[in-house]
């Protein structure tokens, strides 16, 4: 038995061998020493109903590195509450040992060292093994997908989501809800939905013209003799946060009163257990749970939070199952006489070196990837730095993207959207085309170059900051702050819109931005139809090729106060 300290030393020694391919073997050995598949799956089957929740996979068929955020601020009533707790505070709150497998899976510190020890996470072939094991305990366990499934990788982009549809069907999903799905365009969504062997739920999706429900709001399942209603709630700000022109005619919104009506309807129809399969984001769901009675379980999504215990609000248990295939939540319920008497939950981390891949799903994944394998595996360059995305204000992936935009597009300032999806790349690793697409693959990738005044830039930053830091969660859209290159600023998250952002500074001159002066701004992912420019992955690929090995300095240009 090798201690963790020994492993860290082994890991350090191995770091010189990345190029030689010694890396995966060390991590597999380390992870298997520390953990076993039986330990990960251990669960005392309870009650009469089992739910299995996976969400925000973002098209990651294979295991990935994914660093959780260091900065994830809560405002108003959510300040200091999960998921707005990170690092050492998170470990203290949930009794997680420093340097443990759970610390690696759930917190950001020492990510590179721990990644070497515990290996990649996720992989839908491993997920399949876990689902099989749960179904062995409880054959009618209900598998629910919270959405953001069909977007986020090279192969999903090339196949218009078909690779994910095929694999999720093989996993046996029984209902899903949605967000990025709609960025495939309404015609493609309709085509897929018609082909799905399960309902695509969205109680809050309406026809914009007639204000009538556009998708099935809920589905009743009989499990263990219990009527379980699963209500779907799609991402509320679909046409605002993503390009509405791709799915014209649909209206979304939180629609709290609608959810309350549907809860009443399913209860009237005999539901003994009510589950909301939600893509609201955690803080929106926390408010919804407080304001709407009668929901037993909310399976949260969108904000990519992984929380090891349910959060109880007004008799509703909120479950947060992470993202990118890193986790599956298992929830066992004892439902008696129309009431949930007991809830037992485990956030199962998918350590890819510990859990044996299911051979059938592994073969299916390889078949889906095969046509793209040559393009995906091409090495574009190398990184000296850990590339990650998550964090409220910046991440090294977006710093790299902003650098690419400034240099390749000859701009003063670069803007990169505050997306929360995108796998990490470890220092010393090659950057493949697949890695670049994991951080950029989506259907409106054009990198624009335009002129904006200092005043306009201020308005943009204020607007996005309010989407994140409005104290009322129903006004939050669930992304992170727009990432900025070439410019620094100060933000006071407690101020109202219009007063949060000050001291906007052009980094190359050190001067404050002049509201009246015009600056050249490059960015990507505009929600406007007809945006011109090369796709962002080409911009990033050219930049990395030119650099050979990229190195991203720590970003200190955002000064956060009252966080």
């Amino acid at each position, binding site marked *: 038995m090798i201690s963790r300290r020994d492993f860290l030393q082994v890991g350090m020694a191995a770091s010189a061998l990345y190029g030689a391919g010694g890396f995966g073997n060390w991590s597999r050995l380390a992870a298997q020493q520390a953990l076993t598949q039986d330990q990960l799956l251990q669960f005392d089957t309870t009650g009469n109903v089992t739910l299995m929740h996976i969400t925000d996979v973002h098209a990651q068929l294979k295991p990935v590195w994914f660093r959780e955020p260091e900065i994830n601020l809560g405002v108003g009533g959510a300040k200091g509450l999960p998921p707005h707790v990170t690092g050492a505070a998170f470990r203290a709150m949930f009794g997680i040992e420093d340097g443990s497998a759970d610390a690696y899976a759930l917190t950001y510190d020492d990510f590179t060292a721990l990644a070497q020890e515990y290996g990649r996470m996720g992989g839908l072939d491993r997920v399949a093994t876990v689902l099989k094991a749960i179904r062995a305990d409880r054959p009618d366990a209900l598998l629910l997908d919270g959405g953001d499934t069909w977007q986020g990788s090279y192969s999903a982009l090339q196949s218009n989501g078909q690779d994910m549809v095929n694999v999720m069907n093989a996993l046996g999903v029984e209902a899903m809800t949605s967000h990025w799905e709609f960025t495939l365009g309404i015609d493609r969504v309709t085509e897929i939905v018609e082909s799905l062997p399960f309902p695509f739920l969205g109680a809050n999706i309406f026809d914009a013209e007639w204000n009538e429900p556009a998708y099935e709001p809920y589905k009743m399942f009989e499990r263990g003799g219990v009527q379980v209603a699963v209500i779907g709630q799609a991402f509320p700000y679909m046409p605002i946060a993503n390009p509405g022109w791709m799915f014209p005619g649909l209206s979304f919104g939180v629609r709290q009163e609608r959810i309350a009506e549907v809860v009443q309807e399913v209860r009237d129809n005999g539901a003994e257990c009510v589950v909301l399969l939600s893509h609201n984001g955690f803080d929106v769901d926390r408010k919804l749970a407080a304001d709407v009675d009668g929901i037993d379980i909310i399976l949260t999504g969108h904000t990519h939070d992984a929380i090891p215990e349910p959060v109880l609000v007004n008799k509703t248990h909120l479950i947060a199952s992470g993202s990118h295939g890193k986790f599956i939540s298992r929830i066992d319920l004892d439902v008696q006489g129309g009431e949930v008497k007991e809830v037992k939950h485990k956030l199962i981390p998918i350590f890819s070196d510990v859990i044996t891949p299911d051979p059938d799903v592994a073969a299916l994944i390889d078949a889906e990837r095969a046509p793209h394998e040559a393009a995906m595996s091409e090495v574009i360059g190398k990184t000296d730095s850990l590339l990650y995305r998550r964090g409220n204000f910046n991440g090294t992936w977006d710093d790299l993207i902003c650098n690419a935009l400034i240099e390749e597009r000859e701009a003063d300032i670069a803007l990169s959207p*505050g997306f929360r999806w995108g796998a990490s790349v470890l220092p010393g690793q090659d950057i493949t085309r697949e890695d670049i697409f994991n951080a950029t693959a989506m259907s409106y990738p054009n990198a624009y170059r*335009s002129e904006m005044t200092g005043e306009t830039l201020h*308005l943009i930053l204020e607007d996005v900051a309010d989407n994140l830091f409005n104290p009322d969660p129903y006004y939050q859209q669930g992304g992170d702050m727009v990432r900025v290159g070439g410019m620094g600023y100060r933000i006071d998250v407690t101020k109202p819109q219009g007063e949060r952002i000050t001291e906007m500074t052009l980094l190359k001159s050190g001067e404050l931005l002049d509201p009246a002066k015009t600056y050249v701004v490059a960015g990507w992912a505009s929600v406007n139809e007809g945006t011109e420019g090369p796709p962002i992955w080409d911009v990033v690929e050219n930049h990395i090729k030119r650099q050979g090995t990229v190195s991203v300095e720590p970003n200190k240009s955002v000064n956060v106060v009252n966080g």
Partner: protein
Amino acid sequence: MKLTRRDALALGLGATAASFLPFRAMAAADEAIAAFTGGAAVGADGITITAPEIAENGNTVPISVDAPGAVSIAVFAAGNPTPGVATFNFGPLAGSQVASTRIRLAGTQDVVAVAKMADGSFVQASSTVKVTIGGCGG
């Protein structure tokens, strides 16, 4: 690439030029409400306004109001240059006192509904509707 100001705002992942209520408009809304109530005291119970938290399109924002027992409901967009939106009158045979419409909002603002009840009293509810161009959904 030549851009209009509106394009530039949308390109930059969203901005709202009109998120700050002009004081003049607020004063105009107060005056319009006072004209409807005749300056009477206004309660808060018995009226519901339903509006999106964030408008998907500021040019056509669906709202509905419900005030059981009202004889008349007036709707105001407090931040618009002309705040008065509509007044719905209900006769004695009306089955319910519910109305919905779509309104154009110049920017983030409160939408206010005031109902005149059968006994001549007034009740009011309001809802903040944010107008943004957005573009940053995680």
